[in-house]
């Protein structure tokens, strides 16, 4: 059993048409509903909900505070490698992009880690491209072994793996895995991922199932906004989340909202998502699901980020570099995408405190992971 049959039962064009057919009455109904359904979610992300944005924001703010209190989690990405065998039309690490490839050694990882520790980080997100020869399971395993004594919480955003590989890495101390579908539009997915292991749509679609089977503590979902109609892609994300929560009920979930950013020599967004629309989506997710973590990265601008933390976001990154070695080892190597918010983690923490939020650096303990070993 997996998400596949549920996905196959929902046709993209039908879903899209039904979202765009939602009316103001549907939105008002959804706003009042004590428990919101996926149909309500469609109404809340539809164009008909645009005039209700302030009301959605107020509700989202209240619900988020009720569940998460006055806290915001901080995490930071650690790019380990930009080697990649995939062609992705939007990504700086794409195989056909002629850049110098770099994979950090264990010693270099520790040098980078020292910078992040100085900043106060306890939660690190390991990021790589997909190069199974050099940056395969063995490499990831060693990275976790090297870093787990320095960080309380290790998350990972790398190529999809098989279930036994996830089991192995979880036993080594891996806490969370982020795997974005990029788009649920099957034909467009093929266009954007013409070559490499990533071109297998269903293997990627079923990755959260493999993670759930492997017993991961937390997983992150999302799509890349700019590839396809964001409303339809977001409905599929919500559908996927709904299925996963019912099935792998011991796992925690988070959602991210990456908007396509300029990267060297690559695709410009096919569909633009405005700030207003992104706020609408974040609030709609919160109104649908009061417990899910909502995360925002440094792809977004300082002004946007300063405001969005009050609208439903519960986790932010800060001080991020998106190139391997970017913190100290080799600051000039090529980045995956441009950062918009270049403020330091301390500046972000101060901004959160000014708004009445406590920045949370540590929310897990390596001892808890060791227990399950």
């Amino acid at each position, binding site marked *: 059993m997996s998400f596949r049959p549920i996905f196959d039962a929902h046709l993209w064009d039908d879903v899209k048409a039904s979202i765009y057919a939602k009316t103001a009455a549907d939105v008002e109904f959804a706003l009042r509903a004590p428990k919101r359904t996926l149909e309500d979610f469609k109404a809340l992300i539809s164009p008909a909900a645009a005039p209700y*944005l302030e009301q959605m924001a107020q*509700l989202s703010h209240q619900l988020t505070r009720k569940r998460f209190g006055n806290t915001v989690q901080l995490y930071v990405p650690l790019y380990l490698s930009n080697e990649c065998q995939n062609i992705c039309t939007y990504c700086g690490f794409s195989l056909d992009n002629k850049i110098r490839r770099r994979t950090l050694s264990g010693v270099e990882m520790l040098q980078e880690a020292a910078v992040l520790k100085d900043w106060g980080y306890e939660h690190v997100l390991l990021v790589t491209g997909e190069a199974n020869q050099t940056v395969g399971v063995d490499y990831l395993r060693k990275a976790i072994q090297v870093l787990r004594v320095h960080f309380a919480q290790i998350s990972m955003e790398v190529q999809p793996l098989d279930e036994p590989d996830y089991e192995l890495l979880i036993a080594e101390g891996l806490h969370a895995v982020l795997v974005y579908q990029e788009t649920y539009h099957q034909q467009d997915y093929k266009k954007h991922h013409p070559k490499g292991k990533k071109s297998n749509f269903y293997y990627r679609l079923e990755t959260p199932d493999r993670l759930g089977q492997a017993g991961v503590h937390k997983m992150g979902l999302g799509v890349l906004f700019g590839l396809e109609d964001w409303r339809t892609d977001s409905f599929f994300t919500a559908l996927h989340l709904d299925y996963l929560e019912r099935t792998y009920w011991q796992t925690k979930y988070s959602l991210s909202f990456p908007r396509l950013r300029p990267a060297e020599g690559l695709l410009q967004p096919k569909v633009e998502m405005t700030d207003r629309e992104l706020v609408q989506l974040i609030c709609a997710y919160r109104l649908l699901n009061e417990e899910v973590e909502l995360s925002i990265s440094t792809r977004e601008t300082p002004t946007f980020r300063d405001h969005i933390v009050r609208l439903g976001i519960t986790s932010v990154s800060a001080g991020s570099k998106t190139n391997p070695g970017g913190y100290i080892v080799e600051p000039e190597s090529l980045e995956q995408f441009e950062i918009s918010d270049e403020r330091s983690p301390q500046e972000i923490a101060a901004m959160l405190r000014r708004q009445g939020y406590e920045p949370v650096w540590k929310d897990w303990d390596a001892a808890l992971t060791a227990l399950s070993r």
Partner: protein
Amino acid sequence: MTPQPLCIAGRTFSSRLFTGTGKFSSAELMEEALLASGSELVTVALKRVDVADTQDDILRHLAHPQFNLLPNTSGVRTAREAVFAAQLAREALETNWIKLEIHPDPKYLLPDPVETLRAAEELAKLGFVVLPYIHADPVLCKRLEEVGVAAVMPLGSPIGSNKGLLTKEFLEIIIGQSRVPVVVDAGIGAPSHAAAALEMGADAVLVNTAIAVAGQPVQMAQAFRLAVEAGRMAYEARLAAPVAHAEASSPLTAFLD
């Protein structure tokens, strides 16, 4: 609008009112009341019937095509005893459906979650369609789902208490996350309780005492039938909620202008 039928383990029910067969003043009255209720699934306590007797008073009055029998394991105190009782019931009543109830405590008849989970796992492996009677415990429901039960039957309040949906908050969580049908069992004392359970999304209710000990059991059975239909219809029509007033506060989205 035609109401959606309920499907459990491949069997379809047009009535979402399940009934018990205990506590009636006579088997004739039981029969009349159950027919009036429209129920298609009726529980039978193995301990109450004489399966060797083809003219058993209870079974004879349940011999209608619309009644599917759901034998229960009432009286057992452990998983081992429950599995034994289920096998006995399967042979005697020619059904692999079993309402699993293990209440070692004879005073309040509260279900033992540990023994129930053990028995459910074993019975599912043996090919039974298992419907366990349990506390309104959302985690236990997920654990039961994982071992292969066909539905879960959380209690609304202590059995026979007629107190209604005292476990409402937990029932809502169970209904919200369940992948198998949720049948609210025990404690439903009035048609309004049954309607409320269906309105909140329960797939069915099981009622016994409230019908059996009513002043007019047949009339009460009809009242439950209507309440269950109304509750389900309301659920499918989607209830309008009371308007929640947002706290007055400074605009959160003005920065977008």
